[in-house]
């Protein structure tokens, strides 16, 4: 799935990193997104995700919230800390946990409420990529 095109190439397909510990969800999201014009990479946890971010261009981070190890918000913070200014979408059923977090931590994170249907995820991804204007780092 991984594109070998150079980051500077303007016609490159947008790269999306999907992070979820549930293999079914992860693979099915990747499968659906790859039917659109996206390059999709999947990771099972935050550590794997950080290795992907360090090694290849990613335009959008789509991560689950509740995962073993670092959670989705911690992954987004780690990514930003490592200077990957990547737009992020957080998938969660536990809205109230996210809503109760410090406002600064929630900043810039788009919430995708679980359970979502295919149309919602495609729309949210397309919207976030349009707003994010691609990579900023």
């Amino acid at each position, binding site marked *: 799935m991984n594109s070998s095109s150079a980051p500077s190439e303007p016609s490159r397909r947008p790269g999306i990193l999907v992070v979820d510990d549930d293999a*079914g969800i992860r693979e099915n999201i990747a499968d659906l997104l790859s039917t*659109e014009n996206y390059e999709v990479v999947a990771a099972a946890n935050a550590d794997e995700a950080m290795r992907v971010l360090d090694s290849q261009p990613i335009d959008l981070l789509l991560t689950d919230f509740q995962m073993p190890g670092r959670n989705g918000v911690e992954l987004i913070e780690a990514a930003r800390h490592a200077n990957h200014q990547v737009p992020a979408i957080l998938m969660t059923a536990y809205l109230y946990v996210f809503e*109760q977090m410090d406002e600064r931590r929630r900043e810039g994170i788009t919430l995708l409420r679980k359970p979502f*249907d*295919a149309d919602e995820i495609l729309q949210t991804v397309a919207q976030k990529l349009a707003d994010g204007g691609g990579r900023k780092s």
Partner: protein
Amino acid sequence: MTPATAGPPGPSAPTAPDADRPRGRRRKISGATIVIWAVIAGLVILFGVFAVAIALQAATFNAMRWLLSLAIEAPLAAGIIALIWYSRISSRATAAGETAANALAQSEAKYRDLIAAAPDGIFVLDPHARVLDVNGAGETLLGRERGGIVGHSFMEFVPPDRLPSAGDYLEDRLRGLRATELYEAIFSTAEGKRVHVQLRSQVVRPADGDPVLVYIVRDVTAQREAQRQLLESERWASMGRLASFVAHEINTPLTNISLLTASIARRVSDAEVQERLKKIAAQGRIAASITAELLKFARPGAINPVETNLTDLVRGAVEQADAFRKPGVEVRTELGNAPVLCTVDPLRIHEVLVNLVKNAFEATANGRVRIRLEDRGPSVAVSVSDTGTGIPPEVQQRLFEAFYTTKKKGEGTGLGLAISRNFVASHGGDITVRSEVGKGSTFTVFLPKQPAAVTPPA
């Protein structure tokens, strides 16, 4: 004649030289004193036991409680019976002389004081349930003056639905049954309020004449209400946990179904397959909306109150619910001209209002739905009235219960009003309903303009 002093040997001092009478008198007087003190001690112990029994009510020490109360109440019962008997016998034996009458007056006065000061309601009834006597606590319990109790049938103070039970109890007691039962009864006060009581009774049977019943009654309304609330909140909490578990477990497969369906739809061009995939997706969305309702019910979550113009909020809700309006139904909104500012969570109150207006539209085939916003100073009231089918009283009672629905299977989860009430309650408000079958219903949401516990943003 100088009134005798209270000490037991006192009254026997000024006696006639007759050898038999003083002995008789002395016996009688000391007997009366002993009985009085026995009754005082007995009553004190009884009230103690009552208190212990009620404290133990929540625990499961039933057997122990009964042993304890039986052991202690038996002497008391004997005391009360002896006292009443004694006073009856002595009242007839006027020939016994002035001193005896004096002692009787004293004993009666003590008996009166004791009964009057008792914290429990005491009612003395004849076998036909006519009240012969009542103490102050009894008057308070029934919310009536003595004159409105004595001479009346005790059954006047029992709500109609409890009359058979109260009648059975009285008859059983006269037959000598249920002597140790802590009878749970309901009284209705002068204002029609239901008072939950625990009742014990003693039957006094004079040698001649009708038996008399002494009802000792304790108000346990507050305890019962606290128990009911505790049970209810435990019930809701466990139901909430179940709902949350089910919703979360079902959400993952639902998401996968949706993702895979869409993925297939993007890979095949066959119109018939597309048609069926759309149906799968639609069914998946229905299932997801049910789990979403379950989660809202299970975890109402913290509210995010912001200053909101309720006029706009109500108008928006009416517009959104309009899809459920039948063609013959007229909508009237009375929102006033000035904006009504209120610190509420707009998303949640919007949902509550949409739900109420939607219900009103669904209940009304033709006629009118009126939505009125009232500014009441520190609070607001939004009422939604319809001229629809109305709600029978037995349904009204359960209307706000979760999973209770009168809609057809698949048309409602029975969570709408339960969630609405949760949302409104988390604002410190309330929802009430007034309804008459065939005439229509009015639901009113009361909201304080400033919620009681607004948590400042972190």
